[in-house]
């Protein structure tokens, strides 16, 4: 069902956890549909210094969350904003078709966290 890479990220998820007092937090999904992803960001200048996630969901949900954090650590916010769910799935070597829509939301959670960060910055300014 899942590729080896998906199983690796599911079994050994990167960057799992919370950031205390994060610079940005994004959450997508809801318990009804069975997938919730929350992403925490630590930003320095324009760079994502640290990123963590917490996910309630299936194997694909956990793996995409883990993968997206790995993809953006050290990247600029603008670079991170253009990473799509499809790109995450591709980086994992593909997902089963039925998982492409419902569980492949990690990039959305990331984007939500960046938006959250930017909103906070605007308020500070």
């Amino acid at each position, binding site marked *: 069902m899942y590729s080896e890479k998906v199983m690796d990220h599911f079994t050994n998820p990167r960057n*799992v956890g919370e950031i205390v007092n994060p610079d940005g937090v994004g959450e997508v999904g809801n318990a009804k549909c*069975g997938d919730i992803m929350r992403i925490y960001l630590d930003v320095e200048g324009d760079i994502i210094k640290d990123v963590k996630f917490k*996910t309630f969901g299936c194997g694909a949900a956990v793996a995409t969350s883990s993968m997206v954090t790995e993809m953006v650590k050290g990247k600029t916010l603008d670079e991170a904003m253009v990473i799509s769910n499809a790109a995450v799935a591709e980086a994992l070597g593909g997902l089963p078709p039925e998982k492409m829509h419902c569980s492949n939301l990690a990039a959305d959670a990331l984007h939500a966290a960046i938006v959250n960060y930017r909103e906070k910055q605007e308020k500070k300014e």
Partner: protein
Amino acid sequence: MRRVYLDHSATTPVDPEVAALMMTYYTEKYGNPSSVHSFGREAKQALEEARKQVAELIGATPPEVTFTSGGTEADNLAILGAAEALRKKGKHLITSAIEHHAVLETCEYLAKNGFDLTVVPVNEEGILSVEDIRQAIRPDTILISVMHANNEVGSILPIAEIGKLAKEHGITFHVDAVQSLGKLPIDVNAMNVDLLTVSSHKIYGPKGVGALYVRKGVRVVPLVHGGGQEKKRRSGTENTPGIIGFGKACQIAGQRMAEDARHQTKLRDKLMHGILQRIDHVKVNGPIGAKRLPNNVNVSIEFVEGESLLLSLDMLGIAASSGSACTSGSLDPSHVLLAMGLVHEIAHGSLRFSLGRQNTEEEIDYVLEQLPKIAERLRMMSPLYDQAIHTQQAQ
């Protein structure tokens, strides 16, 4: 790697004795039972022996047993076939909210094609009230279809009482007994059942074989047309080796029923109590005690999602199942758990272990050792868990 199979409600291994018997009919006694010659006659004879074995396990006579390609086809033949046969009499059907898809989808297909359907609810244990069925009956009710035991939560439904009611009202009564066959005693006469579905691959027989009991005098319009096999009820060259395997599996199941139930009830209770002891925030789904199938354990591990649990168990060689939407291919979790009133997040975290003949106490110990670690790990990842814990601490 160690492998512990705890998904017997999905399917069972074929009993070695059954498999060996089938082998003979694949490679040596391979005749077509419709043939005149000795190859045909030996196949025919074994086919009829199997019919007897199936009939015996459900208290029927052999001519009342029609072989099909499985439980799903038997459910379809019962419901579509009886509805078609009775459409001049009425158009109202009654079923329950926790039926298998093979029944529910078929009833819904009819509901889209000119029939009326009442779906009777169940309580939080997954059991319906006979009173609700009584209330649902209309003058034009032609068919009641209720399962004997539920495949997900193991609840046992009051079939004999519904049968009595159906008989009083002259309504044809279909029972899906796929999960109860070989686990609970079945007597189609004592239970006043007119149509009864059974399936081979849940009782250590081969996949792709099932049967529909059709009470003498009850008519079902065939689904499949052709050579007129199975007394014209079900055309197609008979799957003789499969049917013979099913017959043998029924015979063995009849002999072992009490022993199997004792063994599995013990393991079931050990597993269920063990999980409750070792993991907090766990909810048992389905009834506790005598109203539950001897081999079914179903729990919701809150704050974690079912497929993640399954994958984690699988990596340790443990095979189970879940009512999570992610494992059903639909967007909603199990219709059974929702019908029992579970909220979505708890339904998503459901986990079913279904026991079998070969399972051991030691295997249960292994699950009880591993599952808490898995739950812990997934909860540490879960945004729902810390929310819940924070909320609790705040209270």
